[in-house]
């Protein structure tokens, strides 16, 4: 089985499991007391956000290793991770407002977490714009690595400023379901969803990586 095929199977499995998670979320997980059914979207929203973050962190790590090892496979992985990360960031940015409208009464608010996802989205889009603007392969890989590393540092900084100086940052307006206060049933559904999203991420990246490899090979032949 080629990597692309493996990736496709992972994605198909992931999607089926996602369906399962949602059946569980809708039918077998209690409705949240304050937010009502709107809270169900969190089983997509939160795992997607975490996966986006993971995608960016791996992007930066791949960058660091690329600068030392100069292995084009690392660059291909970074490219794939960035694209998949953008998709997940879009999911976060769409599901966030859908939830926010009934709960916060507004589509968008400059809440710290929402804003930091927007940052991730901009960073990932900028990363791909840069890739599109550098024709030479090795230069593109090097520039991408530099930008990826900077992006991770920035993301770290955003978190640092949210957590180290919490009083300085705009507070969430309405209660947020934070993990410790989550009832066991909900937590389990959320964790299952995490697993599924991780599977989807791996599956998508494998397929995208296979495309990148084929592109690089078509240069040779």
């Amino acid at each position: 089985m080629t990597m692309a095929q493996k990736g496709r199977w992972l994605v198909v499995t992931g999607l089926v499991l996602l369906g399962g998670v949602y059946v569980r979320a809708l039918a077998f997980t209690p409705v949240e007391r304050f937010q009502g059914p709107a809270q169900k979207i969190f089983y997509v929203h939160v795992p997607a956000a975490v996966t986006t973050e993971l995608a960016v962190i791996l992007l930066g790590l791949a960058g660091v290793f690329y600068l030392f090892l100069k292995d084009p496979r690392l660059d291909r992985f970074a490219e794939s991770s960035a694209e998949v990360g953008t998709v997940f960031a879009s999911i976060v940015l769409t599901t966030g407002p859908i939830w926010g409208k009934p709960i916060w009464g507004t589509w968008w608010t400059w809440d710290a977490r929402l804003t930091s996802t927007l940052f991730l989205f901009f960073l990932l889009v900028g990363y791909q714009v840069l890739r599109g603007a550098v024709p030479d392969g090795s230069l593109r890989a090097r520039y991408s690595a530099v930008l990826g590393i900077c992006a991770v540092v920035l993301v770290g900084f955003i978190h640092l400023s949210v957590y180290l100086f919490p009083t300085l940052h705009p507070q969430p307006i309405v209660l947020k379901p934070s993990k410790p206060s989550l009832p066991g049933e909900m937590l389990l559904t959320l964790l299952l969803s995490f697993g599924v999203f991780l599977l989807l991420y791996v599956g998508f990246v494998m397929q995208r990586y296979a495309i990148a490899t084929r592109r690089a090979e078509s240069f040779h032949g």
Partner: protein
Amino acid sequence: MLWAEGLRHAFNQGRVVALDDVSFNLAAGQTLAIFGPNGAGKTTLLKVLAGLIRPQAGSARVAGGRRAIGWIGHQSQLYGHLSVRENLLFWASLYGVPRAERGARATDVLARLGMTDRAEQPVWSLSRGLVQRAAIAKALIHEPRVLLLDEPFTGLDLGAAAELRALLAALRGAGRALVLATHNVDEGAELATDVAFQLRGRFVQYAPRAGRGSAEIAEAYRRAVAGTNG
């Protein structure tokens, strides 16, 4: 003074071969002329020698390192809004020429190139030929022992090209080694002590000049190019 061993380099993930097993060495007083069509990898070779590109395989070494290299290309590497003299002082400082010596060095180099009366003019106001002379002054300011010349004749009219050849002839010897890369055999053959034809990254011929005349070298080059293409 200059060693290259098994240099290989390719661009675009191996699609464009710029250096294919290039080896040579050059002693003081020698001038290697590298002839080849555009895209044969001449500039890449010079950039490898200058330490600007790290080759994917093989190694190159210049006695004395970066400080010993002077570069003359078809681009002057001078700042248009600075005067010739200011440019020279800037580059002298970068190359670590002691502050006290910089002024005298600049004056001396400008005199050797007959540019004393142009010293205070901004570079943008100079003609192509004068800019090229200023570029040579820039390349000589730190008294390099190895000169790398990349298509130095491009854009010069016949008179200016002849003048440049005379200048380069004067620079040979005195413990200096020159590497001259050009696509035009007629422009460089008479300066050479060693001759190489570079085609698709490879030195297809590399030999001492051994008394060959310019016309003979030009003829051999044409045959070599025709041979690779056909």
